[in-house]
């Protein structure tokens, strides 16, 4: 251990010829294939983690590969594909911003940080408190990973494996995120109900203590599909598709030959306790300098209970009245 508790570093600024600013994605991928390097887009996590004080250049553990301005990584299209180097401010301003991000982006850090932070950086940094991961999980985002050998598509749930860890190989780059229509189901529509709460130490610019993102698809007072993602209460985002299905699976009543599609408000409220127990058994937050495990756990479950037994049923009942 060195003076002042800083972890050991090899020291020395990175020589200019070891800093790579590729002109194209192909060039970047060749560099990735050739050896150790650290991709950097917005840098908002990497710079903070590796800063060394005033007038001291930032030192990463491998030569930096600047990918933030690569045009191939900066597109947003109408099919719900977002380039990994698209900044959060660009996403927020874009008319093509997918609906799941709309409640989340204004709560992400600050306007100045959003100018720099990228969707790819937030995903690859894989913090348990990452703000974008819950909506990405809830909407079955698929990640497009490229290497000089080709491309592969990885569902987000398979990509982020733990705090700060992903299945990105050392010769790969995350190039795009597919959310919504270009994901697995081309007929997917935007949810008509979204509940998002980020609980942090203050309203301005703060790291999440816990978050909950619920998207629901309803019609005629019945819930047909629901996606629930809990953030910062486990090493990775919690998503339980089996529990979600159980909540919405129609059940044939006595004398009915076929199950109706979805469930009404009453059925949802009846099924909620079993679902909440299932989440309770997998929620395992930690005590840290921001919050306590017990508060994170209790609060996320209280919010979930509120959604399933109060807010969403009310939405269904209102809808069902309006339909009459």
């Amino acid at each position, binding site marked *: 251990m060195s003076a002042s508790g800083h972890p050991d570093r090899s020291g020395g600024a990175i020589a*200019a010829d070891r800093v790579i*600013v590729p002109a194209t994605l192909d060039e970047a991928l060749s560099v990735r294939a050739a050896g150790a390097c650290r991709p950097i887009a917005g840098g908002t996590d990497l*710079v903070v983690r590796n800063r060394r004080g*005033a007038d001291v*250049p930032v030192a990463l553990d491998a030569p930096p590969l*600047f990918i933030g*301005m690569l045009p191939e990584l900066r597109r947003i299209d109408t099919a719900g594909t977002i380039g990994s180097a698209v900044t959060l401010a660009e996403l927020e301003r874009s008319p093509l911003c997918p609906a799941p991000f709309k409640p989340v982006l204004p709560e992400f850090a600050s306007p100045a940080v959003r100018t*720099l932070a990228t969707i790819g950086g937030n995903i690859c940094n894989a913090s348990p408190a990452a703000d974008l991961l819950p909506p990405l999980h809830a909407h079955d985002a698929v990640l497009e990973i490229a290497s000089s050998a080709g491309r592969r598509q990885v569902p987000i749930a398979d990509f982020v494996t733990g705090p700060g860890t992903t299945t990105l190989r050392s010769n790969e780059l995350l190039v795009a995120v597919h959310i919504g229509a270009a994901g697995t189901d081309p007929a997917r529509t935007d949810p008509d109900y979204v509940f998002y709460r980020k609980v942090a130490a203050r309203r*301005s610019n703060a790291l999440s203590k816990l978050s909950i993102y619920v998207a629901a698809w309803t019609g005629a007072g019945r819930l047909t599909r629901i996606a629930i993602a809990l953030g910062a209460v486990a090493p990775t985002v919690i998503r339980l598709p089996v529990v979600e299905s159980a909540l919405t699976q129609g059940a044939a009543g006595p004398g009915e030959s076929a199950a109706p599609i979805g469930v009404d408000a009453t059925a949802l409220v009846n099924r909620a306790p079993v679902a909440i127990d299932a989440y309770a058994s997998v929620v395992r937050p930690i005590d840290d300098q921001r919050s306590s495990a017990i508060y994170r756990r209790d609060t996320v479950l209280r919010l979930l209970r509120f959604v399933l037994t109060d807010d969403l049923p009310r939405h269904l009942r209102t809808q069902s009245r309006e339909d009459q």
Partner: protein
Amino acid sequence: MIISFTLNGKPVSLDLDPMARLLDVLRREFGLTSVKEGCGEGECGACSILLDGQLANSCLILMGAVTGRSVDTLESIRESGIGRIVTDAIVETGGVQCGFCTPGFVVAGAALLKENPAPTDEEIAQGFSGNLCRCTGYRQIFEAMRVATDRLTEGEREGSS
């Protein structure tokens, strides 16, 4: 590495360490000391600048990412119409005390008004959500933005920029 970018409206080209922070380069190489270090971690906004016209924290930007982009600091923003209105309004309402956070607030305030000439109270608070002040309690700064908004509207009616 030779890094070329536009600084306060003028093209510059300098041999710089690409891993140097933009904050340090602006202060040391260019003497632009309105840009300050309050935390080094993107929390306080004292280092606020405009990157391609958008509010950003210069303590988080590495020079290797600045090539071909434009950077504006308070030294040029204060000469613009909006910049003058914002600085004047902040002094008038008492929204400046020790002054260390103030350049960041002026840059953020000017950026907000450029994009949204008639912000609501909530939008003003959002616009400043990355700027910390410990002296004023923020209220007089918000008041300055209301004064600035009024002046901007008057100015537009009178045809000034």
